[in-house]
């Protein structure tokens, strides 16, 4: 759905910039309306975004730096960090490859079932994380489809890391494709056809023409995938064995500490994730700007 909007957006873009100044005089709201709307926005975003973020950081430090440092350097927290990074390290490259393939198929070719495929890519967004976990338990769990076979071969997927990786992949599968489809569609394929007609091979065309042209959109999708993979909670909670130091990710560690009345320690670990979220926002803004400024059909000169 989002992809459609952005794709439509692409077509009308050239109109925006120069009309900006003209409208001010003729069609603006009265000053008191403007001021109160701006005030309202500050209050709304302050209450719902800024204060929750602030409470994470202030609660984390509420009992001083010593306790904060101890919570963050605790061996169980450390192993949660390592496990989380492993999940990200496996999920992100695989889903990026998938996203590129899916975007190539959907944005470059017209085939029957194309719109169905597009909706299928978006499907994981409307599935509750808990249902994702349930689905994987039903396939790989002891009583699941592959349960007996996995048991016989002594392979554990559920309540272990492979299951956590798989559910994270499910949850983050749409991001890269969704960012790339509109970017690819908007650029058109003249440059690629040109490269091919000049004798470049398919892969050469892809790496020298396509990839440089969509790199900001791609990076944007990768950042979103990474952020979500780092922070997935519900689906992972279902398929993790919840053994501290063994198969707890950072979000599960936060949950565990909070439920055990170690709120300050929970917020300390949470603050690590909050800082990563803030870095994500900065990257997103930066990449979003680059993506929008990458003028479509600018003769393809791969800048930088």
């Amino acid at each position: 759905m989002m992809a459609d909007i952005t794709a439509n957006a692409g077509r009308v873009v050239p109109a925006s910039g120069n009309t900006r100044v003209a409208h001010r005089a003729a069609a603006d709201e009265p000053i008191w309306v403007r001021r109160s709307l701006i005030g309202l926005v500050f209050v709304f975003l302050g209450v719902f975004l800024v204060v929750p973020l602030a409470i994470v950081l202030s609660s984390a430090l509420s009992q001083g730096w010593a306790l904060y440092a101890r919570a963050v350097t605790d061996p169980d927290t450390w192993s949660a960090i390592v496990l989380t990074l492993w999940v990200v390290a496996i999920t992100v490259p695989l889903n990026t490859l998938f996203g590129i393939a899916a975007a190539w198929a959907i944005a470059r070719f017209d085939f029957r079932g194309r719109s169905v495929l597009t909706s299928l890519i978006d499907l994981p967004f409307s599935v509750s994380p808990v249902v994702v976990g349930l689905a994987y338990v039903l396939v790989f769990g002891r009583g699941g489809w592959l349960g007996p076979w996995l048991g016989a071969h002594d392979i554990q997927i559920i309540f272990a890391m492979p299951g956590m990786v798989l559910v994270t992949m499910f949850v983050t599968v749409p991001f890269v494709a969704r960012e790339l489809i509109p970017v690819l569609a908007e650029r058109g394929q003249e440059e690629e056809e040109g490269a091919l007609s000049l004798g470049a091979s398919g892969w050469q065309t892809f790496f020298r023409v396509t990839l440089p042209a969509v790199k900001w959109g791609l990076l944007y999708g990768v950042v979103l995938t990474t952020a979500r993979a780092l922070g997935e909670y519900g689906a992972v909670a279902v398929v993790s064995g919840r053994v501290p130091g063994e198969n707890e990710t950072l979000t599960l560690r936060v949950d565990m500490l909070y439920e055990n009345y170690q709120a300050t320690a929970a917020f300390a670990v949470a603050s690590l994730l909050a800082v990563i979220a803030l870095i994500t926002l900065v990257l997103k803004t930066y990449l979003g700007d680059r993506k929008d400024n990458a003028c479509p059909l600018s003769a393809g000169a791969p800048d930088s």
Partner: protein
Amino acid sequence: MAILLRRGNPLPGFVPATSLTLIYLSLLVLIPLAAVVLRAAGLSGAEFWRVITSPEAMASYRLTFGAAFTAAALNAVFGFIVAWVLVRYSFPLRRVLDALIDLPFALPTAVAGIALAALYGSNGWFGKSLAMLGIQVAYTPVGVFIALIFVGLPFVVRTVQPVIQELETEQEEAAGSLGGTRWQVFRRVILPALWPAVVTGFTLALARGIGEYGSVIFIAGNVPGVSQITPFVIFTRLEEFDYPAASAIAVTLLAISLLLLLTINGLQQWRARREGRG
């Protein structure tokens, strides 16, 4: 693969790209979801009905859909205003606020969950003052509502924002020069142009709110019959190893949310067609 009949395109890679996409999606998404549907189908009709209409399940649907709907509606109104202000007005900190909109996407749900629980708990910054007014948020449906406002906040803003950016101001100016008041211009010119984007954003927020788990459960406290959302009920069935019941409720949740999304999409298309004629 007979459905994949490509229509002439000189570019290479059609077969590998579509095959990879289909295989990946089937293994990762479709087969596991099919497992849920089939497990639920293993129940007899009567049993299935009993499980999905148990008082606990019914209370959870009312809460989940009610809270998701009202939160999405509130986000539609405020998201519209936020998008408008961010695009049309210039003021200090505009860029910062704009970047901050995506916080609910970037912040892990469990972190948001404990933050909201701490904030609205009886000793929290907001919880204390609201308690003095006689409003209890934590452990009530209001808590679920608050959490879903947080989660759904970016959707309307981010769908409406690009449309406002492209809105041709000539029309507004023309309407204004013909003597329309700003309010009339807003109602007759601006709102109709932005309406589809608002509905799309509302729908996305609704879909997300229905499935949301991490940011809700801490503030909701999961009091049986009062503040248990449907995903939590599924989670409980799972922990009891009652997989058929978990699957039945999961299928119901999926079915109702897909139905809702289709209805809203249908309504929007109907509206677009009607306006196209009128």
